[in-house]
């Protein structure tokens, strides 16, 4: 499996954000996107997820399910957490497990995901009372409640403490070790295994 972007040109509101960008991420690899604010990291991730149609160029997942779009094979986690504040932590995670999961809903899988992000004690707690970092961890637990080969993470460590960031890095490493692909926009060095870096600022100068 391989995520391939070819000659991407992306416009946002009459401004050209990405110009002639090509890259490939092989199975079991992570790609870290870096660059200053406004350089187009979010735009690129939303294009990979299929929310933004590129002006030119294409994104495809070689060796993926040909019936599904790239977005449908990806977990895209942006700045929002897709957490419902009037549901409990467990209800939030269980909903995504039942809705996104390829198999029958599995309580064990939900529990394992919550445990990985250190939320197992908070299962019956309404999400409205979670701190920003805990909400972020609940949002990230969606990665683990349902398996998808491609992870698209936009500043996933925002509002996370050091220990939680390490849990996230461990989750990404486990994902790539089992043949998954991850594309991560970040400002912090994450210390991922099997990762290459794409600096969008340098790419822009080259183009």
């Amino acid at each position, binding site marked *: 499996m391989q995520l391939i972007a070819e000659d991407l040109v992306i416009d946002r509101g009459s401004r050209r954000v990405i110009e002639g960008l090509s890259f490939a991420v092989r199975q079991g690899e992570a790609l870290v996107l870096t660059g200053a604010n406004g350089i187009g990291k979010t735009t690129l991730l939303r294009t990979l*997820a*299929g*929310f*933004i*149609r590129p002006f030119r160029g294409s994104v495809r997942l070689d060796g993926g399910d040909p019936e599904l*779009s790239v*977005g*449908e094979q*990806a977990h*895209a986690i*942006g*700045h*929002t*957490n*897709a*957490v*419902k*504040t*009037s*549901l409990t932590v467990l*209800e939030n995670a269980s*909903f*995504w497990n*039942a*809705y*996104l999961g*390829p198999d*029958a*809903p599995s309580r064990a899988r939900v529990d394992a995901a919550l445990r990985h992000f250190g939320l197992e004690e908070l299962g019956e707690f309404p999400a409205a009372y979670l701190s920003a970092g805990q909400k972020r961890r609940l*949002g990230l637990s*969606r990665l683990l409640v349902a398996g998808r080969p491609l992870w698209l993470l936009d500043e996933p460590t925002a509002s996370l403490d050091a220990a939680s960031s390490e849990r996230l890095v461990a989750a990404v490493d486990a994902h790539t070790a089992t043949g998954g692909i991850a594309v991560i926009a970040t400002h912090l060095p994450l210390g991922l295994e099997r990762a290459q870096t794409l600096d969008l600022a340098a790419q822009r100068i080259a183009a």
Partner: protein
Amino acid sequence: MTRVWALLHRDLRLAVREGGAIGTALGFFLVVVSLMPLGLGPDLNLLARIAAGILWIALLLAALLSLNRIFEADYEDGTLDVLATGPLPLELVSAIKALAHWITTGIPLAILAPVLGILLNLDLNAYPVLVGTTLVGTPAVSFLGAVGAALTMKTRRGGLLLALIVLPLYVPTLIFGISAVSASAGPSGAGSSFLILAAVSLVTMVLGPVAAAAALRIQIQ
């Protein structure tokens, strides 16, 4: 099927937990209808004649109040992005969300309508027809409303714009809903109007989700 149920169950649960939407709609319905006799005076014959019209108009306005929440909340917290790349087509997602709106708003309003009929001296024989028409007619309110809700999802304070888009589309439901209730007292009965009302609802249940999904795809970009 598990997924359909999971999404419907979540939406119903959210509506019950958050509560505000159902309460506001029912309260608004109650207040508007009880203002009518105060404004029009205690002429029982006049009230009985216009009762069906007032009930239907107040019901449509009350249902409008909660329409904007169908997609807005999910858009704001990012849930809609995930649903859009989920395993169910967006058309089905729209249909499920409109159905949840009907269950949490349409059905309570339809149950409250005959109670408010008492305030307006509605003819006793018209009660079964009133309940029947409001139950059969309100799906059109939710499913057409979902189209408007999808179009105005990103608009700040889009409620008024939503009303302008959606209210004209409610005209067939309003006309045949009222004429079914009025005709139930007459010699010809409510049959034909009632069937047309049901047909309007069925058509919107098929076309509404398709239109709403198209609007959502544009809005998510």
